[in-house]
């Protein structure tokens, strides 16, 4: 019996079967506490047609899919070890195609043109607001978090707190909060941009300076708690934040610089372009940063903090810097969101969103700016699509379930992400080979 159960083919099939039936459950109808079996019954025993080929119960459909997965898996293994070839490739120096300069620049150029024309190409009210509120803002947030998680290797689970502070700062200085605004308010949201960035940066430094000495896992918990506290305060300080009812209305920005005159309104597309301009600026800045001495110092600290200190790098200083840069990006995103949506609500700044942003970074590839942008776009487009045309049984909160599963799968199968940063990929390969000291950075296993 034991040997039978240990049969690799049976095991593989068993895993495929369980995974596919889990997918059946995930994609099935929801249940409730009163009818706890409704979800299970609907997921497994409801009749379903498989592309009109045959009509049968769902679990059989997913059994068929499991057979397919099993076949692919088995075939893939006999193909020889794909993993080994990719890992050794990560260690050789020659650049991949996308790393070649002319190719890369023309790719970026095309991407930028597509981004500029996108509101024309996809001329649809839903998608206009989706590409602003869901895609644009979240790409920006992911890019900022990438500096913290990807470049500096710090797991920040309360990132959305800085986003919230940015949004509330905007509400505050435009005179939209119950609490009195400085200089009687009535500032334009454009003024809020530098103010919010500075305030958020200070918040980042205040939180970071004491806590960034902590080991990585402790830091994760502390930032998580910080995120929760910001939400608690936003929800309960009625006199200051307006409480859970939120606060508003926040005015739209107005631009009067030289010959340029523009008044933003509720329409999302102008905000899309505003975001795009700043996104390009942030992307260029971060990419220069990555290849500057600061980026190299972050890599050094991430890989071996002790060795980094031995060449005179102050780890705390660089970590705080990453934290502050990431925070200020979120702060800026907060300004845009607040003025675009006209209101601030504590419910927009939950732990769920923090994890959501983290998934964007992990999925795209920690430390890879290009990867993070692409990954964020893919996930946010999928999210918006599911919101727009939900499949049967899908509830919008189910998204987090899929994102959670995605995180686990990424860590098991592709920890360095969809489009990995070369440095990160090498680190993952090296840690597999037992080289490098990355773990000590995280756990601080110093004597």
């Amino acid at each position, binding site marked *: 019996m034991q040997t039978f159960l240990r049969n690799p083919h049976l095991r593989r099939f068993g895993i495929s079967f369980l995974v596919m039936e889990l997918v059946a*459950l*995930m994609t099935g109808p*929801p*249940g*409730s*506490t*009163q009818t*706890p079996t409704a*979800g*299970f019954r609907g997921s497994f025993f409801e009749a379903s047609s498989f592309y009109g080929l045959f009509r049968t119960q769902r679990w059989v459909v997913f059994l068929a899919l499991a057979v397919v997965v099993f076949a692919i898996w088995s075939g893939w293994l006999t193909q020889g070890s794909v993993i080994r070839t990719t890992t050794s490739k990560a260690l050789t120096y020659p650049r991949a195609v996308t790393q070649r300069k002319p190719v890369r620049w023309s790719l970026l150029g095309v991407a930028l043109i597509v981004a500029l024309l996108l509101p024309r190409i996809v001329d649809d009210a839903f998608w206009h607001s989706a590409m602003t509120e869901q895609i644009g803002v979240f790409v920006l947030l992911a890019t900022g978090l990438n500096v913290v998680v990807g470049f500096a290797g710090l*797991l920040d*689970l309360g990132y959305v707190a800085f986003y919230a502070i940015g949004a509330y700062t905007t509400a505050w200085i435009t005179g939209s909060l119950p609490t009195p605004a400085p200089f009687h308010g009535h500032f334009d949201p454009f003024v809020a941009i530098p103010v919010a960035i500075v305030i958020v940066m200070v918040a980042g430094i205040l939180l970071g300076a*004491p*806590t960034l*000495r*902590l080991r*990585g*896992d402790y830091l*994760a*918990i*502390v930032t*998580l*708690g*910080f995120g*929760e*506290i910001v939400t*608690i305060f936003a*929800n*309960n300080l009625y006199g200051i934040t307006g409480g859970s009812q939120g606060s508003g209305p926040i005015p739209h920005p107005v631009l009067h610089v030289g010959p340029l005159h523009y008044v933003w309104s509720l329409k999302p597309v102008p905000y899309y372009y505003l975001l795009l301009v700043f996104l390009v600026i942030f992307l260029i800045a971060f990419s220069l940063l990555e290849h500057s001495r600061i980026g190299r110092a972050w890599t050094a600290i991430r890989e071996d903090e002790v060795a980094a200190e031995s060449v005179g790098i102050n780890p705390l200083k660089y970590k705080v810097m990453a934290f502050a840069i990431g925070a200020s990006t979120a702060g800026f995103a907060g300004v845009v969101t607040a003025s675009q949506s006209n209101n601030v609500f504590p419910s927009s700044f939950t*732990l769920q969103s923090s*994890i959501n942003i*983290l*998934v964007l970074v*992990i999925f795209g590839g920690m430390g890879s700016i290009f990867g993070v942008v692409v990954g964020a776009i893919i996930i946010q487009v999928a999210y918006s699509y599911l919101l727009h045309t939900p499949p049967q049984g899908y*509830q919008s*909160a*189910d998204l*987090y*379930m899929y*994102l*959670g*599963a*995605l*995180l*686990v*799968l*990424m*860590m*098991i199968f592709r*920890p360095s992400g969809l489009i990995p940063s070369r440095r990160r990929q090498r*680190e*993952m390969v090296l*840690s*597999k080979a*037992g080289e490098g000291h*990355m*773990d000590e950075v*995280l*756990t601080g*296993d110093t004597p």
Partner: protein
Amino acid sequence: MGAFGHYLSGHFATFRLEFWSLFVGGVANGFLYGMIAVGYTLVYGVLRLINFAHSEIFMSGGFAGYFVMKALIGNSVPSGAATVFLIIVGIVVGGTAGALVATLLERVAYRPLRRRNAPKLAYLISAIGASYFLFNLAGKEFGRYSISMPQPYINHPVFHIFGAAVQLYYVVIFIAGVVMLFALDRVVATTKLGRSIRAVAQDAETASLMGVNIDRTIALTFIVGGALGGAAGFLFGLGTGVVYTMGFVPALKAFTAAVLGGIGNLRGAMIGGLLLGVVESLSVVFVQAAYIDVIAFGILVAVLLFRPTGILGERLGRAA
């Protein structure tokens, strides 16, 4: 100054009045925190990482307990022997669910990473993902609103201590908590499993050279920690009801308790849990209820910054 003094003296008057009843509630919470915290500490001992998905082990125990109570109690009002039986069944079922989820978690989210010697960051992310997956799956299957658990008894004051009534619910928690934590302490201190856990905690490499089966020990550690977490989930749900997000806040506090006692230190986690429960409960007098969670978090940050090794110091091997 005068106004503030007045404010304080007013609060101290309430404090004196309410002290014992708050204390009793705090100890009950403390036992729950302790039962969750030992799960963090055990896993930390053998894997050197914080099991971010422990909150979902707790949650699964709550739901399992809810369903079994609902099936067994129906519309009846149990008493006497039936109550004792139901509570024991609830704890066992909650614990089993917790152990099961913990095992799955270890197999799916941790073991593959251990196989390829992944960096710690990968474990954290994988655990966060697993936690998100689990509680949102629970939300999908069981609905996203809180529901109270069918009661296996009519809650009433059993006895008084310094004028403070001690509810039956608290008595259940005290007894269950003392029995389970004591049993765990003995298991880790005296049994072969306990010896393996301590050996792996002290030095996994040497332990494996001495013939300890690391994989098995880690799996069993998850089961033990999961069982206590699941049981705590049932007990918590008995008083507060169950909802898919129920794990988050108690687990964060239990983690604080584990750090407070010295992470990796079993008795530390128990003491840390009790201490946190009591401090938190007493602070109700001074801050609004909405900010209670802030206090636990403040304690966590303070401990991490000023005494990261906790009250009793780190390391599992040394504790028991």
